[in-house]
């Protein structure tokens, strides 16, 4: 026979409530579990006899804890090394019990076990009273977000079932929990060994009027599904198995429906949900909710990677590269300022630096004090800073996307909660006007400017592959328009990158920012009455759409068309060659997508037409639309 428990796998009927049992070592967690199983009639056949036989073989009195302590090492040392999970049921419902070790060295296992629980029992030995681990576990439960707690004062038989002793422990622990912001917990005096107040009411403690353990358990509620919270859909992967481009992930909060406009953070791109993809499911899916692992396709192709978070535009996550975290530290060496780790939040992973250790909580009484090093199993408030912008949430509002872990080498060394107190949402700094700025009305109208200049202002936004002829055409068009009396200026990629955008590289984020700035500057030129010609590949529709929104009706998209083969043959700057050899990464057309315009205002075909013909076409377009009094951008006074 073996020890431990073969769960009666046959009798789970409904969803089980996940319950963790924590507390100081030897305060009776495993004994309580054994007793709960026995008294609720959940033990499989033969198990009681097996435990009895094992105890006899070892020459020791009957020990309920053997039910949980399945490992040889645990049986011999009499402590629980790891978490284990087993199932039992009361007449009301079923439970998964996660037995969490109380030995100090095993805090990581306690956290592993407790992190997924919906409710907790904290065991306190009536004789020993509140111990260090009792406090730490209470603190960690709170940090892990477990709000339903019952405190079990065990071994009441060892203190003569004293109501005073119980009250004394209750008052001590309640004061501690209140100090860390926990309230509403229940206190239950029991003797787990004898079964007092587990299922059956204790005769020896008739002074106690509160619930038995089973009554308290049955009073817990399953965690509500966070469907009503703002949408958070962290992208787990992007699949291109066939012609579909599927964004896969799990909805952490909220819901997604076909036709919804999604905002992706931190890239700040938007798109509309085209489909929710399924397999072996009757009928198409039009909506999915929190908790579901799904795949979606979008109405247009975006460059989205694992780690992006989709939300609605009006309840977006916070964007920041610095935040405060309250964390528990599991590393072998102390956590100090300046250390670097890998941060994992949702599906995002990025290097992070500990900028500052703000407060360290005393391991004995968990009072906060100033400190600069966090010992193993310590809890602290730290400031974390990343290079890249992150999409984060306040843990107190959205715990699932507001919590993170740190890894060092091959292991998780910390878990923590995000607090943004005192840190601005950087999305506002980057993408929106600050709310205390108001636009001022110009006293010179667009019409007045057009009348003086002889033409209206506008943006000619050239887009096309590298080598399609954008720069060549832009310079030729500028020259010809200038000759004809137009106020015109070309914003060219290489030139702009030497000044305005000198701080930007070629990452997808930097490219998007490059285009955003050019769009804004071009819009300003247009409003000033000039014709701004831009010559950027600008491969993404979303980026061009943003430029269009900046210049609004003054925006004219010109598609400079030539196919990839032609452009690659021209290769005026030798870039395709470098891209093919891998020297340049993410090169449009080779290793990154080009999204051709849907309905550009004008298309010129440089593959079939000579440069002069193309220039003529563009100039004719300008003459039609920009000459004073004629253009769509000129309003009649």
């Amino acid at each position, binding site marked *: 026979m073996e020890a431990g428990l073969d*769960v009666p796998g046959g009798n789970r009927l409904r969803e089980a409530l996940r319950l963790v049992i924590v507390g100081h070592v030897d305060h009776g967690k495993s004994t309580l579990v054994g007793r709960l199983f026995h008294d609720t009639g959940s033990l499989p056949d033969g198990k009681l006899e097996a435990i009895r036989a094992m105890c006899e073989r070892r020459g020791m009195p009957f020990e309920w804890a053997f039910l949980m302590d399945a490992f040889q090492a645990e049986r011999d040392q009499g402590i629980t090394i790891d978490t284990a999970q087993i199932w039992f049921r009361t007449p009301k419902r079923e439970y998964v019990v996660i037995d969490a070790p109380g030995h100090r060295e095993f805090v990581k296992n306690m956290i592993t076990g407790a992190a997924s629980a919906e409710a907790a029992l904290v065991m306190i030995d009536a004789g020993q009273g509140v111990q260090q681990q009792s406090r730490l576990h209470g603190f960690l439960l709170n940090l892990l977000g477990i709000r339903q707690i019952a405190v079990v004062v065990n071994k009441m038989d060892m203190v003569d079932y004293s109501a005073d002793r119980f009250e004394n422990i209750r008052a001590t622990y309640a004061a501690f929990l209140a100090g860390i912001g926990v309230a509403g917990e229940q206190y239950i005096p029991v003797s787990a060994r004898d079964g007092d107040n587990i299922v059956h009411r204790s005769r020896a403690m008739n002074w106690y009027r509160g619930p038995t353990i089973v009554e308290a358990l049955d009073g817990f509620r399953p965690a509500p599904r966070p469907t009503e919270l703002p949408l958070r859909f962290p992208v787990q992967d992007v699949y291109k*198995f066939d012609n579909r481009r*599927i964004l896969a992930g799990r909805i952490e909060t909220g819901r997604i429906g076909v036709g919804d406009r999604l905002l992706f953070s931190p890239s700040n791109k938007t798109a509309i949900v085209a489909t929710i993809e399924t397999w072996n499911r009757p009928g198409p899916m039009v909506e999915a909710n929190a*908790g579901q692992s799904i795949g979606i396709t979008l109405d247009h192709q975006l460059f989205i990677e694992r780690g992006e978070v989709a939300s609605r535009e009006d309840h977006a996550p916070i964007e920041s590269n610095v935040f405060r975290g309250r964390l528990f530290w599991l590393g072998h060496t102390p956590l100090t300022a300046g250390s670097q780790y890998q941060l994992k939040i949702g599906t995002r992973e990025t290097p992070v630096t500990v900028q500052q250790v703000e407060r360290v909580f005393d391991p004995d009484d968990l009072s906060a004090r100033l400190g600069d090093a966090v010992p193993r199993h310590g809890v602290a408030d730290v400031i974390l800073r990343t290079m890249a912008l992150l999409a984060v949430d306040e843990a107190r509002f959205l715990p699932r996307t507001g919590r993170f872990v740190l890894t060092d080498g091959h292991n998780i060394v910390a*878990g923590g909660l995000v607090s943004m107190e005192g840190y601005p949402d950087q999305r506002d700094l980057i993408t929106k006007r600050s709310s205390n700025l108001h636009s001022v009305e110009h006293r010179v109208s667009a019409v007045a400017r057009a009348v003086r200049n002889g033409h209206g202002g506008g943006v000619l936004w050239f887009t096309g592959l590298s080598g399609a002829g954008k720069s060549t055409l832009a310079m030729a068009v500028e020259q010809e328009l200038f000759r004809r009396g137009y106020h015109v200026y070309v914003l060219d990629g290489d030139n702009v990158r030497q000044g305005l955008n000198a701080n930007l590289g070629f990452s997808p984020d930097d490219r998007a920012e490059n285009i955003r700035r050019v769009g804004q500057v071009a819009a300003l030129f247009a409003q000033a009455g000039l014709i701004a010609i831009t010559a950027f590949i600008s491969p993404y529709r979303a980026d061009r759409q943003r430029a269009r929104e900046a210049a609004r009706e003054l925006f004219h998209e010109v598609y400079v068309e030539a196919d990839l083969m032609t452009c690659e043959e021209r290769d005026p700057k030798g870039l395709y060659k470098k891209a093919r050899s891998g020297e340049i990464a993410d090169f449009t057309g080779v290793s990154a997508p080009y999204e051709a315009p849907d309905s550009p205002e004008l298309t010129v075909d440089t593959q079939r037409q000579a440069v002069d013909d193309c220039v003529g076409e563009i100039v004719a377009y300008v003459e039609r639309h920009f000459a004073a009094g004629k253009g769509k951008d000129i309003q009649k006074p």
Partner: protein
Amino acid sequence: MDHLDQLESQSVYILREAFNRIERLAMLWSLGKDSNVMVWLARKAFFGRVPFPVMHIDTGKKFPAMYAFRERYAKAWDLNLIVEDCPGVEAVDPTLPTNARSAARKTLGLRDAIAKHKFTGIIAGIRRDEESVRAKERVFSPRGDTGQWDFRDQPPEFWDHFNSDLPAGTHLRVHPLLHWTELDIWRYVRREGIPVVDLYFAKNGMRYRSLGDQDITFPVPSQAATLDEVITELEGTRTPERAGRAMDRETEDAFERLRAAGYM
């Protein structure tokens, strides 16, 4: 979302994490009900295809019906099937009890297959409720260079942040069914219409509840001849699932020793 939806969603999440994070990944397919569910879940996760090899570590002693099942569904499901043999029983630790020695051949077969294909991740269909030693497993469980499991010092794992970063020479076991029970498996088989071998259904008052090698797996008394009857039977039983697996109970720690050495 009902209970089965939640289980499915969690398994899909785990499989997608494994596919994204692990370079050289394979799924073990023992041809039993659990691994059939696992293959099915992979098809759910990846929209109809299994984007990594599916490996059968063949002791050569499975039931004929299981081999027929393998050939049929490897084709029907368009699996990239790898079949690897196991070394003879003489290669196994001689201090193990007889039946456990026979089972341990699979450990060696798996070890050799991992080395041969240079796999860095192996997806296995174990469940916490099967056996108390398995109850302690992590979802992403690191293994030493010979496949051994150090249950005394397992890495922390919480909030679905799985450890996927490993030293060279080691590999990960990924357990997408860890949170399922035997009854969940059968209910899901029924809901999705997943095929299983007939041996699970009673003939002449006996059926197999768990399928291993022919010589160390025994049928249990049962009248459950259909899926519905199997589910009804399990809703009332208090007999452990692996009661028909001789290797588990020869000595108190036989299964623990098998697992510590790398058994699935």
